[in-house]
């Protein structure tokens, strides 16, 4: 058996709370183990080499969206990235576009909440609420599956980090926001009309701001059909705004 690979991890370091800290890359050496993910590598690094390193993992199974970071130039979920798929030199940066907490940890949570509030991205159900003792309202099984397809977004922020428009317009809602509008627009339980959705995303901070560079589509860890959804939403909003 060949000797395990030595990996050079160049990790972005900065603690904004510490006046003495300046942003820099710090290099660590880690011995690769079989099946090692970036979650395992960073955890081992923190346990054995540098207990001050800040990063975010929660489910470590690619489900919760906590660990988005830029891995060798590409936003992705670190927990399910196997080191063996990467070269021996790996550079890790925090997701841009979100406020930095420290090192690889960013505040995407506040961003997502603000976006949700701005877009009212929750189901606007009919009034009054149904009687919960009664049979539930029916839905076509295929439609339920289609809604779930768009509901699978995990708000990891990779699409926002990869977005060209966000760099130019800080109020752009991102593919994550547009996908939510598409999701609620598809759901017959949501009472909002296209005109009301237009008020939410019919401007340049919404669907007409998108420059169709579509990096969002390429980096989405859940492989959401962002490209088609944005195109579809744009046609729908053109009609609603006409």
């Amino acid at each position: 058996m060949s000797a395990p690979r030595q990996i050079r991890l160049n990790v972005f370091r900065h603690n904004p709370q510490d006046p003495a800290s300046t942003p820099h890359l710090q290099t660590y050496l880690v011995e690769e183990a079989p099946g090692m993910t970036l979650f395992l590598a960073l955890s081992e690094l923190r346990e054995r080499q540098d207990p001050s390193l800040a990063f975010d993992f929660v489910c470590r199974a690619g489900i919760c969206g906590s660990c988005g970071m830029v891995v060798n130039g590409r936003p992705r979920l670190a927990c399910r990235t196997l080191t063996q798929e990467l070269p021996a030199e790996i550079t890790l940066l925090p997701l841009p576009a979100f406020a930095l907490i420290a090192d690889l940890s960013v505040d995407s949570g506040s961003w997502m909440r603000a976006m949700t509030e701005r877009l009212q991205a929750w189901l606007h159900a009919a009034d009054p609420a149904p009687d919960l003792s009664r049979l539930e309202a029916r839905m076509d099984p295929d439609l339920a599956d289609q809604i779930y397809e768009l509901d699978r977004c995990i708000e990891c922020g990779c699409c926002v980090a990869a977005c060209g428009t966000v760099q130019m317009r800080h109020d752009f809602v991102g593919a994550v926001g547009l996908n939510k509008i598409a999701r609620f627009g598809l759901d017959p339980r949501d009472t909002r009309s296209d005109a009301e959705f237009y008020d939410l995303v019919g401007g340049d901070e919404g669907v007409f701001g998108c420059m169709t560079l579509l990096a969002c589509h390429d980096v989405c860890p859940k492989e959401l059909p962002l490209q088609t959804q944005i195109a579809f939403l744009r046609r729908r909003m053109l009609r609603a705004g006409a």
Partner: protein
Amino acid sequence: MKIVYTDVLVVGGGLAGLRVAVGVRRRGLDALVLSLVPPKRSHSAAAQGGMQASLANTTKGEGDNEDVHFEDTVRGSDWGADQPVVRMFVNTAPKAVRELAAWGVPWSRVRKGDREVIINGQRVTLTESEAAHGLLAQRDFGGTRKWRTCYVSDGTGHAMLYAVGDQAIAHGVPVHERKEALALLRDADRCCGAVVRDLATGELVAYVSRATVIATGGAGRLYRVTTNAVICEGMGAALALETGVVALGNMEAVQFHPTGIFPAGILVTEGCRGDGGLLRDAAGHRFMPDYEPEKKELASRDVVSRRMAEHIRKGHGAPSRFGPHLWLDITQLGRAHIDRNLREVKEICRYFLGVDPAEAWIPVHPAQHYTMGGIRTRHSGESPTLRGLFSAGEAACWDLHGFNRLGGNSVAETVVAGMIVGEFVADFCQGPGGEISIPTALVRDAVAAQQAALDALLGGGTESADAIRVEMQQVMTDRVGIFRDGASLTLAVEALEALLLRSRRIGVRSNAPGPNPELVTAYRVQRMLKVALCIACGALAREESRGAHFREDFPRRDDAHWLQRTLATWPDPAATRPTLAYEPLQVESMELPPGWRGYGERNHIEHPQTPARAASVEAARAIPGLHRYDLQRELMAYRHLLPPSLQGDNERLGEPLR
């Protein structure tokens, strides 16, 4: 000193905490949620398989109702559950799943007509009725007699958490993210909030509230191999324990899930077996029917995990560089089914194992999965020993699950408890004891005490927090796992006590302002050790086997001596062990008196009152013409315990409302 005021402080932004918050908001109170992470990243998001609610929409669910769900849950608990609480739960679960449907959860739906499924390794055609078309679908899960588990493909927890999280936003509930409750604020026997650390800045803040709800989830990370998220460290249990007066119930009841992928411990859902997946050994032999001819792969989790461990011990595990494991085979379900209903499983196999489960078997091994024990509460969610303190969800022990939780009953519990406990919290705040007056000096002292404890960790101790944590996890996995015995548990308790003493001498190297992850590990491991000791001491004292608690030296369930709930408290902060007390379960009033579960060993020791109670239950059942609701009320009245809005019956296709 910064102080934040609110009516209801909810510690925990998972399904349980968020649903409580929405409930109290609807009653006109302010609620504020604290969470270690953005709430939608709470561990609830990881639930894949589904949520139990007896809707009986599918052919295989026909005849299901609250009664069947009740019996399955009590049998699953190995009679450890509180039966009136189980009744409250099964009556509310259909309402909860329907509420979530109205909030936008894209539940998978029944499609009329024929479809092929795999049952017990055989291809079978099921025909769904025209009448059920478009209603919520159910799948099969372990330990249930009917198909009862509602699901959203295999992203059920995610879809539920997003819907409830969005509702919390719609209701204007503030969530303070990256905030960790370190201690409860207490004025004599009244809880009035918490001392909270900002995980981004390191600042301590006091939150003062009329009611406080702990909904912090489970404690899986006490173990080295667990399906739980890295933030499931039992901090809510520790918050309660460190008051000295609040008890933890049945902490020794720890569930091990049969199918953690090997060796990482990441879960693949029980839905794999529910949908027809099989367990195989090194030789490719399907071994579960040899042990469990009735339920096979779909016996309850404690039983399947134990049989797997037993089979590995007999030398039938598949060898690997990390040790032996078994195989989960879902190839016969076919690619189309896997792509549609088991997508997360497919992704997990692809990313973490490099395996396509439509073609290759998945290496699996039982892994710690669920914390049945928790903060002991009444049926209302309120602590019987600290007024104003409530708990809900996995953190709580009101006690729905006893010694083994059924798959799909936990996410159901979170929202059901949220609905029920939310109402009781609001009642409490609006009732006679709902106001507080608390001296600022008390708040200041509580904050100062936490600051002093943090300063001590920064004060040059010699022990490493990470090393202690790893050792604790290893002790728990090696000695407080699936198979337990007195000698090994004694060693575990001694080792944990030694670690607890060492943890008082931890020295954190970095004192940079801000997040300081090493400091976080340090103060958490001190608390985790106390929770671990409650588990180990409870397991050592309980000289019987019940549900997930299996003692090789006491292999029988002993109702005569152990139909009791363990209550662990920690009155003396300097002690190295909890104080254990016991609360008997009342056989005389059980709707379902203790018996055989229908799977697993058939060798329990009977409680002296069981025959008499069983006879009177039989007599009541024999009364001709009694409607099932009336019979149920005869046996064990419970509806008065529910908030009025949740007392009603549930309509089903085959069962119109009375």
